[in-house]
């Protein structure tokens, strides 16, 4: 079978750029091949740090393009147009055919079938695909014009055992690959993919990144088994490490047991994040003083193992030094040091932020009925760990370190936990804070970010969200919903804006509150859409929402969704539609609702009474509201409304009575709409 092998040999390309280049190359090649009428049997992209390889099979030698008739201008248009069309197809006017179609008579050009040499076509389309890769970060080198992830050294291109000649930037394709040994680089001729992978394998290089990843994983799991450890492997680390080596060699190493007294997070950060080693934990979740190195070379003299152990020793001893010193620095005294850490340009320092959080703790603890003093303390010290050397060494441990410092200094457990948990949720699937001090602080911290960046007009756009405000907003809403919290967001935003302005922040966006609320509403829509709720129900709930209590919005939407096709929902919707249809026909200039004196029929009074019961039920305190009950009340009006429509003629001869009846229907509809905006619901 025919095969095409391309290898782009370069200096070491970072992991994330490799992943991106693989994906893009695959898509670009598929597109370009198919637009050249080429359908490969297989198309695979592989990468190592220095090699980006394309392997395609099943391409024909010749591309056969069948003859076609291409529709041109309508018969009867000016000669110029016809002439131009003929020219564009390399034909004379006399060559054009006239054909009848449904839309009239048209000229057609008959294009003869052709045969194209695949090799020539590949030589054209491959450089185009290479050119179209958009690197997230790219560079130039030497005196060349090409932009690539890292310096591109050579391009091997073989089609059916022959060199496929083409030029790409300053490079011409060659029929050899490069092999680096120690400090030498050799050129080795390659005839086929089989040849190529064999050659690599002989030199212990695994070309296929998936194979490498599986190989590493298998080795790690077998070590875990041997040592009775948990067989959980950090997936993103595995991916990264697989892209950092081409001849993986798995080595187990150790560090001094005494370092196990350090917080686990420090050890894990040192080993995983900084050094890309795998840590081991036993079945009881205790960390071992052993770790796994994925080296890119054999370790015949055991130098690699001892070298890495020395590095870990130095790093842990450094961390230990900082830990012992930092944990004794009083977190309250450290607050002043935050004056030196900028929160964001034009938004003051982190110190200013903690002051805002502390002031806001006062308001939110009232709303949520939680311990004010504790929340104030937690807010004040929430960022103190940022001033420690440990966090400047291990920025990914912000919060975690603060928690340990706090516990060490005798802060209460829930205050300490809040220091680490207020950063939650970190991703869309991450857990949310569940304890009162933690979730309150988390809500304040996220709202502080949102309000601040909106105030200085650094809003996210459809493509850019550098301060991860979407994530903040979704995290905020999830924390509210999943903890069942009734919060007056609108008030909190007002307070935040006032405090920011008091601190001297210059407002660059006078619409910030309105825009922020809209932003939150949009995020809420997304959350609801992900729950596969009908869009008209989401629209109905959002439209009637007062922008304050997002929990209410969430709950009502879920209730509506649950009952919309059941008796309860159907009755409510049909009752509303019946009343609103009449109101649509009659133009009512509404005054202050119906006047009980003007009721003539019993059914009018009864309906009015029902409405009043509902309105009263709607005004109970937020935390006692039962939205299913509310919907039921609305649904139950069907009986009274049906009776009303049966017995009462709205269109009374007396204009006052007629208007009074319209007023009654009006108040009925507006009562429905305070639940959700029924006019937005599709009739069911």
């Amino acid at each position, binding site marked *: 079978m025919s095969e095409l092998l391309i290898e782009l040999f370069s200096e*070491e390309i970072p992991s994330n750029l490799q992943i991106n280049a693989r994906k893009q190359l695959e898509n670009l090649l598929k597109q370009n091949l198919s637009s050249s009428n080429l359908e490969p049997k297989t198309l695979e992209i592989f990468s190592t740090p220095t090699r980006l390889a394309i392997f395609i099979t099943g391409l024909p030698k010749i591309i056969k393009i069948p003859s076609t008739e291409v529709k041109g201008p309508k018969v009867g248009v000016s000669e110029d147009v016809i002439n131009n069309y003929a020219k564009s197809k390399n034909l004379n006017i006399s060559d054009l055919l006239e054909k009848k179609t449904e839309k009239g008579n048209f000229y057609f050009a008959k294009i003869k079938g052709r045969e194209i040499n695949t090799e020539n076509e590949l030589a054209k389309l491959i450089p185009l695909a290479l050119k179209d890769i958009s690197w997230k970060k790219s*560079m130039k*080198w030497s*005196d060349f014009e090409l932009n690539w992830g890292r310096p591109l050294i050579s391009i091997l291109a073989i089609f059916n055992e022959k060199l496929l000649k083409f030029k790409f930037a300053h490079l011409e394709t060659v029929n050899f690959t490069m092999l680096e040994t120690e400090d030498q680089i050799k050129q080795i001729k390659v005839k086929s993919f089989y040849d190529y992978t064999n050659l690599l394998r002989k030199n212990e290089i695994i070309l296929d990144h998936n194979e490498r990843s599986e190989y590493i994983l298998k080795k790690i799991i077998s070590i875990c088994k041997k040592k009775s450890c948990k067989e959980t492997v950090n997936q993103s680390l595995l991916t990264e490490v697989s892209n*950092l080596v081409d001849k993986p060699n798995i080595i187990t190493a150790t560090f001094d047991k005494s370092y196990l007294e350090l917080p686990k997070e420090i050890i894990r950060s040192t080993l995983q994040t900084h050094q890309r080693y795998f840590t081991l934990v036993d079945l009881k979740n205790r960390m071992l003083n052993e770790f796994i190195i994925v080296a890119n070379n054999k*370790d015949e003299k055991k130098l690699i193992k001892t070298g890495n152990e020395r590095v870990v020793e130095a790093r842990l001893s450094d961390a230990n030094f900082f830990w012992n010193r930092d944990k004794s620095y009083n977190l309250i005294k450290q607050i002043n040091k935050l004056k030196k850490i900028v929160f964001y340009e034009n938004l003051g320092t982190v110190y200013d932020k903690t002051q805002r959080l502390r002031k806001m703790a006062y308001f939110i603890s009232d709303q949520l009925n939680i311990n004010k003093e504790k929340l104030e303390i937690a807010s004040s010290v929430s960022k103190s760990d940022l001033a420690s050397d440990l966090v400047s060494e291990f920025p990914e441990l912000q919060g975690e370190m603060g928690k340990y410092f706090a516990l060490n200094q005798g802060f209460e457990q829930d205050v300490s936990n809040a220091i680490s948990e207020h950063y939650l949720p970190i991703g869309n699937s991450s857990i949310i804070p569940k304890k009162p001090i933690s979730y309150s602080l988390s809500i304040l911290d996220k709202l502080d970010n949102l309000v601040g960046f909106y105030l200085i007009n650094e809003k996210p756009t459809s493509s850019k969200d550098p301060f991860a405000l979407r994530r903040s907003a979704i995290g905020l809403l999830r924390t509210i919903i999943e903890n069942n919290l009734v919060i007056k967001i609108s008030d909190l935003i007002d307070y935040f804006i006032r405090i920011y302005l008091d601190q001297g922040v210059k407002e660059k966006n006078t619409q910030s509150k309105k825009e922020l609320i809209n932003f939150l509403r949009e995020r809420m829509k997304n959350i609801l859409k992900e729950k596969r709720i009908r869009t008209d129900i989401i629209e109905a709930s959002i439209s009637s929402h007062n922008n304050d209590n997002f929990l209410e919005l969430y709950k009502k939407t879920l209730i509506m969704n649950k009952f919309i096709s059941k008796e309860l929902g159907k009755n409510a919707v049909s009752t509303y539609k019946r009343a609103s249809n009449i109101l649509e026909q009659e133009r009512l200039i509404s005054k202050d609702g119906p006047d009980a004196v003007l009721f003539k029929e019993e059914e009018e009074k009864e309906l009015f009474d029902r409405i009043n019961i509902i309105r009263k039920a709607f005004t109970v305190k937020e935390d006692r509201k039962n939205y299913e009950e509310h919907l039921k009340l609305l649904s139950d009006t069907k009986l009274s409304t049906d009776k009303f429509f049966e017995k009462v003629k709205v269109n009374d001869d007396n204009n006052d009575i007629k208007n009074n009846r319209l007023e009654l229907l009006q108040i009925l509809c507006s009562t429905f709409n305070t639940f959700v905006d029924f006019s937005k619901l599709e009739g069911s």
Partner: protein
Amino acid sequence: MPKKIKNKKNFFTFQDVVFNLQKYWGKYGCVILQPYDLEVGAGTFHPATTLRSLGPKPWKAAYVQPSRRPTDGRYGKNPNRLQHYYQFQVIIKPSPKNIKQVYLKSLSSIGIIAKDHDIRFVEDDWESPTLGAAGLGWEVWCDGMEITQFTYFQKMTGIECKPISVELTYGLERICMFVQQKKNIFDIDWNSEGVKYKDVYFQSEKEFSAYNFDHANTDFLLKNFEMAESECKSLLEKKLSLPAYDQCLKASHIFNLLDSRGVISVAERTGYINRIRELAKGSGSIWLDNQIEK
């Protein structure tokens, strides 16, 4: 009495490492320069790198550069940190095709034989806001330890580089700790006569840490900053790029001292950095103009 190291095979003292790198890169064709005679934060600040990486003329140079980072001082108490340390710097323009192999070979001249170790190129992109500079490259790891910065300059003093230079920065203390298997910088053997790093630099670390953190006269430094800045500007008007760049270096070091004294507030910080960058930019563009006029 200091103990002599008796002709140990494959043992490289601190000064051996310097000699061998100089010899290696001298042979390769680099101009072997001496350290720049002003306080700088890294080998990159030497005009032989900053300014020579601009413009079209080819250039190859290597040199040791004593470097100062006042905030890294630990009064000689930390085994891994110094406020004054050494870099060995190589700058080559345009970057040669086989630079990776040339670099790996240089390691064997200082006792690191690539085939026995795990040498890794780990992504590390570099940016210097004070120099208005940026580059892409790696930190080179040897068995998990960072031993070199390997950078392709893309921009310097705000000017796009064309052609591109490659910069290699060896951390000499790190490398010596590695080849001599030491856990503490101060235990590094400086020569084979028994002189340790501690004998040469321990007192200096203690005294300078005290100066950097506690005693540097900040009023005086603030005035000096202003003076260096205004001198630089007036020299730029006279089209004297190298003397102007000297003043830029002085301003930069004074800023680092003020920073370590803790007198620069967060809001002021960016302002200072921008001011230094302006001086670097001015020096770079005039240096380039003067090159072309020749």
